[in-house]
């Protein structure tokens, strides 16, 4: 028990890099892709914490090993998809990503269960899922037709 306490206090000193970008006014993605307001809300509530350059951290993020655990999730999330860097992807990659996002939503793989367990309002309702997937397919089509 004593050893556990020492380890627990010790790991609090492990630093982590917060995922936050202060000078980001409005996400470029929302502007460039003319994202409708209701879709913007869904993306912000359910996706952006792991898939953008700005995470809204909960208070318990200050505690290790939770901080490290979250950092790993965010790192992996951003590596697979980062909405703030979406415009820098090739058109091919953008199309691929839009398809992949739709697939993940359809199969309830995203947002992650462990995330929605703690962030209740991030869980997608059936209506939100349909609207989001619909919008994603429309975007793919318009990219195919060379319009954003």
């Amino acid at each position, binding site marked *: 028990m004593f050893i556990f306490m020492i380890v627990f206090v010790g790991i609090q000193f492990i630093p982590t890099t917060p995922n936050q970008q202060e000078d980001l006014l409005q996400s470029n993605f929302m502007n460039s892709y003319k994202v409708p307001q209701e879709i913007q809300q869904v993306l912000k509530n359910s996706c952006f914490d792991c898939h953008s350059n700005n995470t809204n951290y909960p208070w318990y993020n200050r505690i290790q090993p939770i901080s490290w655990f979250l950092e790993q999730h965010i790192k992996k999330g951003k590596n697979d998809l980062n909405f703030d860097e979406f415009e820098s992807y*090739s058109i091919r990659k953008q199309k*691929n990503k839009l398809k992949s996002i739709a697939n993940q939503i359809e199969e309830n793989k995203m947002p992650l269960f462990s995330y929605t367990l703690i962030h209740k309002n991030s869980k997608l309702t059936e209506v939100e899922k349909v609207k989001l997937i619909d919008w994603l*397919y429309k975007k793919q089509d318009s990219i195919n037709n060379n319009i954003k």
Partner: protein
Amino acid sequence: MKNLVKYMVVITVISVFTGCKSELKEKNSTETTTEVQAVENTNLNADISKTALLNNFIDSYLVLKNALVNDSEKEAAEAAKLMIIAIDNFDKRLLTDAEKTLFLEIEGTSKEHAEHIVKSDLNHQREHFQLLSEDLIELVDILGTTKTFYSVYCPMYKKKGAFWLSEIQEIKNPYFGSKMLTCGEVKSQIN
């Protein structure tokens, strides 16, 4: 008994890996010989030897495709590893600037798909395979091939259906495997 099982597992894994590697090496050396012969036939221009460039990439793709036909998640993961190696070893020197740009783009997305296939379940592997297939078919259209292939379409997969590249005309569906093996239609022949 436990030790014996461990020992057998290790031997099996090693022989599978060396088996796969030596198969690829054999294919590599056959392909290289073909390529060298093509270049040495002086009447043939650069376009002809270009058609052999994609051979390794396509070969690993076909191994992946057949693994999915057989509903084998593990074999698909192994094939994807081979694909990453094939893509890394692709010789870009003979490409024009425009072809190089296209290739580099597809190189990026294909490797990402292959990396995902290595660590995903069968369903997710198939999703990535769909996107990979589209990109490869585009590459094949531009660079050409030394052998005959078929572009096959399955209308039932996802909302809009999906294509795959096949070395045979017989329909063996990688998107549904044993669940719907013969669903599909040859849309075009390449080469």
